[in-house]
């Protein structure tokens, strides 16, 4: 039995309630049901998750790393970071 013909899936795991699903890795599976089971066995065996999303890798559209200018404009615009405000003490840790 070979899984060379099985599609590739991207696996997202939520580690606990309130947190985002985070990309954990990718694996092969014949369909979405098997992808969930495989993800459970491969990525949550050390109690890493409470929820799994699977997406077929072919449905992910990625930016082209060669296209360096894409992120050029954001460089050097430090005023886009909210670091110029004084946070009142009463607010505490943010």
């Amino acid at each position, binding site marked *: *039995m*070979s*899984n060379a013909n099985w599609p590739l899936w991207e696996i997202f795991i939520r580690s606990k309630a309130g947190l985002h699903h985070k990309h954990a890795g990718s*694996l*092969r*599976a*014949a369909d979405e*049901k*098997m992808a969930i*089971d*495989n993800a459970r*066995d*491969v990525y949550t*065996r050390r109690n890493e998750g409470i929820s799994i999303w699977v997406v077929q890798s072919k449905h992910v559209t990625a930016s082209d790393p060669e296209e360096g200018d894409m992120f050029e404009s954001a460089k050097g615009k430090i005023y886009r970071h909210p670091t110029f405000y004084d946070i009142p003490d009463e607010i505490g840790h943010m």
Partner: protein
Amino acid sequence: MEDNTKIIDFILRLADNSLILGHRISEWCGHGPNLETDIALTNIALDLIGHARNYYELAAECKGDGSTEDDFAYLRDARSFKNVLLVELPKGDFGFTIVRQFLFDVYNFEYTSQLCQSKDTRIAGIAQKALKEIAYHLRWSSEWLIRLGDGTKKSHDKVQDALNDLWMYTDELLLADELDQFIFDNGMGVDHKLLKNAFVTRTKEVIEKARLQIPSDQWMQYGGRNGNHTEYLGFILADLQWMQRAYPGLEW
């Protein structure tokens, strides 16, 4: 036979089933058909060996003579092992492993579900903890049985062959002997009539979904639970036990 000895024998049957099947499945580690199934099988093997440890610890506690879980696992000979024949058969191909796992998982799920109600709270405690893992084993092996049975002609034929070869070992899982009856009568064990009904219903449902046929009117094979094993158990024990036999008391 004294009651305490009976309880120990009863616990050892459960422990031996889990240890021997866990060992068999662990043989897939690094040899699975692909990475994902390799890890899944290894997880199941570890779960089963964990259940075996819990039962052996309890048996040691009941024995109360300073015996440990290791004495039961490493220092008994084949005739003293009380596992069913089904679990000691060689792992075969992936289809064979899946069919065997499915048959055992159905039995184990239904049996352990009942055992959660055992009057002996120690047994019930182990059962409740194990049941969550067994439920996943059953889901996994059912899913694979359906995929292979309802897959290609080749995969269908392979699992049908495995089912034909393995069906004769199923009645040993279900039949109650004097010991089972004694334990059940004392509120600690399992009602084997209920067990058999549940087993038949559930296996039928999944096997039909997998487009497979249950072999009819087959000769049934028994023996493991009384210590009469196939030739394969000795080889498993040689693998498992040689270190403790060669270097008694070795620790690391």
